[in-house]
C-alpha cells in the first residue's frame, strides 16, 4: 500500500511539475571546473591515456593504420538500434576539430557527455566510462591531443531518427545511467588498477556487457558477454565462468592477440589489442587480475 501511494504521489508530482521537471532533469551538466583549474598536462603520460582509452580506434579515419591512426579525422560509423552514429573529428584543427576547446571543454565532453555549446552527446561516446577517469589523466590526454596532426575533414551528422534525435532525451538517459560509481569493489591494489583500465579508460563494458531496451548497461550482468550492436556477432563474456585463461594468458592475448590455443583476435577486438599491446605488461596483468576478481553467477 505504501509503495502504491508513493507511486501515485510521484506520478502527481511529475504531472504537476510537468515539462519544467523534464527541462531541469535533462539540463546538460558540467564537471567541477575548480578541479581542472591548476592542472598541468603531461603529454607523455597523455599518450598512455590515449592508448588505454582507445581514442584512435573510433576517431581515426575508417581503414587508417599505422601513423595515420594518429590523425583523428573521424568518420567511422557505428550502427545501433537507435540509428547510426559517426565519430567526429577530434584532431587539433581549430575549425573542424577540437583545437579551439579548453581543458574543461574536453572534460565536460568526456565525463559529462556535453559539448562546449552545451549540447548532449549520444552515449555511443563512452562518457559513462570516462566519467571515472581522474582529472589529471584528462589534462594529460588534452596535452597529448595537441601534439597530433590536425585534419580539416568536417564531422558528419549522426543518422538518428525520431524520437532519439531529441537531444534533451539524452539528458533523461544520463540521469539513469551516468554515474561516477565504479561497478566492482575491491581493496586489492592490482585489481583496482585493472578496474581503472577496464571500467574507466578501456570502456570494455560497452561491448562486453548486455544492454537493456533503453541502451543502458545491465550492471547485474557486468562483462558477461553481449550481442554486438549492428548484428555483427557477439562479444564474449569475460567473467571467470566464461573466461578460464590464466592471468598470463589474458595478458598475452592483450599483447599479441593470440589466445592460449593460438587462435587470434577477430573483429573490433583486433583494434583493442592494438591499443592494449602499447600498455605495459603490469597494466595487462592488472586487467587480468580485475577480470579474475569479477563475480560469477
Amino acid at each position, binding site marked *: 500500500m505504501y509503495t502504491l501511494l508513493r507511486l501515485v504521489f510521484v506520478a502527481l508530482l511529475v504531472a504537476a511539475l510537468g515539462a519544467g521537471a523534464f527541462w531541469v532533469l535533462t539540463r546538460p551538466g558540467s564537471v567541477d571546473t575548480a578541479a581542472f583549474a591548476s592542472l598541468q598536462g603531461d603529454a607523455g603520460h597523455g599518450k598512455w591515456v590515449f592508448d588505454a582509452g582507445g581514442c584512435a580506434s573510433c576517431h581515426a579515419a575508417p581503414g587508417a593504420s599505422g601513423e595515420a591512426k594518429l590523425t583523428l579525422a573521424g568518420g567511422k560509423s557505428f550502427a545501433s538500434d537507435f540509428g547510426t552514429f559517426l565519430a567526429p573529428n577530434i584532431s587539433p584543427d581549430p575549425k573542424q576539430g577540437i583545437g579551439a576547446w579548453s581543458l574543461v571543454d574536453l572534460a565536460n565532453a568526456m565525463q559529462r557527455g556535453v559539448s562546449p555549446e552545451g549540447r548532449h552527446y549520444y552515449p555511443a561516446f563512452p562518457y559513462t566510462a570516462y566519467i571515472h577517469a581522474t582529472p589529471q589523466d584528462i589534462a594529460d590526454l588534452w596535452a597529448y591531443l595537441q601534439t597530433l596532426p590536425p585534419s580539416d575533414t568536417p564531422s558528419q551528422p549522426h543518422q538518428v531518427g525520431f524520437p532519439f534525435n531529441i537531444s534533451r532525451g539524452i539528458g533523461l538517459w544520463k540521469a539513469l545511467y551516468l554515474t561516477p560509481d565504479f561497478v566492482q569493489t575491491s581493496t586489492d591494489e592490482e585489481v583496482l588498477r585493472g578496474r581503472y583500465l577496464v571500467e574507466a579508460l578501456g570502456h570494455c563494458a560497452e561491448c562486453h556487457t548486455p544492454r537493456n531496451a533503453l541502451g543502458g548497461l545491465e550492471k547485474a550482468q557486468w562483462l558477461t558477454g553481449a550481442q554486438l550492436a549492428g548484428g*555483427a*556477432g*557477439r*562479444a*564474449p563474456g569475460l567473467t571467470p565462468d566464461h573466461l578460464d585463461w590464466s592471468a598470463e594468458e589474458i595478458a598475452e592475448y592483450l599483447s*599479441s*592477440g*593470440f589466445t592460449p*590455443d*593460438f*587462435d*587470434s*583476435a*577477430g*573483429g*573490433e*577486438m*583486433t*583494434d583493442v*589489442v*592494438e591499443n592494449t599491446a602499447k600498455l605495459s605488461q603490469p597494466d595487462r596483468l592488472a586487467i587480468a587480475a580485475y577480470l579474475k576478481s569479477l563475480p560469477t553467477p
Partner: protein
Amino acid sequence: MKTAALTLALLAGLGTAGTAFGQDAAKGAMEARKSVMHIYAYNLGILSGIAKGEAEYDSEVAMAAASNLATASSIDLTYMFPAGSEAGALEGSEAGPAALNDIAGVKEDQMALHEAAAELEAAAGEGPEAIGAALKTVGGACGACHKAYRQKN
C-alpha cells in the same frame, strides 16, 4: 499422369538432395579452412613456447614449425568460402560476410601472412629472441585478416 507424378517426385527428391549437398559442401569448406587455421595455430604454439622460454630451444623443431606455417600459409583459400558457409548461415562458422564478398582481400591478407611466415622461417634458426620478434609480425597479419573478415558469434 503417372509419368508426371514420377517426374515430380524425382525432381522433389533431387531438390532435397541438392540442398543437402549444398550444406555438406558449405560445411566441408568451413572444415577445410578451419583445418588450415589449426595448422597455423599448432605451429605458432610451438614457436611461441620457445620465444617465451617455456620450451627449450631446439633449432630443428623451430625450423620445422616455421616451415610448416609458411607452407600452410601458401594454401589457396579462394574456394573455401562458398555461399552458405558464412556465420549465421552455417553453425560453427565465423566467416563474416566480407570474407565471401571480397575473397581477393582475403587472399591479399593471406599473402601478408605468408611473407611474415617466411621471415619467421628465416628467424627460426637464430634463437628465441629472433623468433619472438618475427612472431609479432605474424600475429599482426592474423589480426589484420580477422579484423576484416572474421565474425565471432
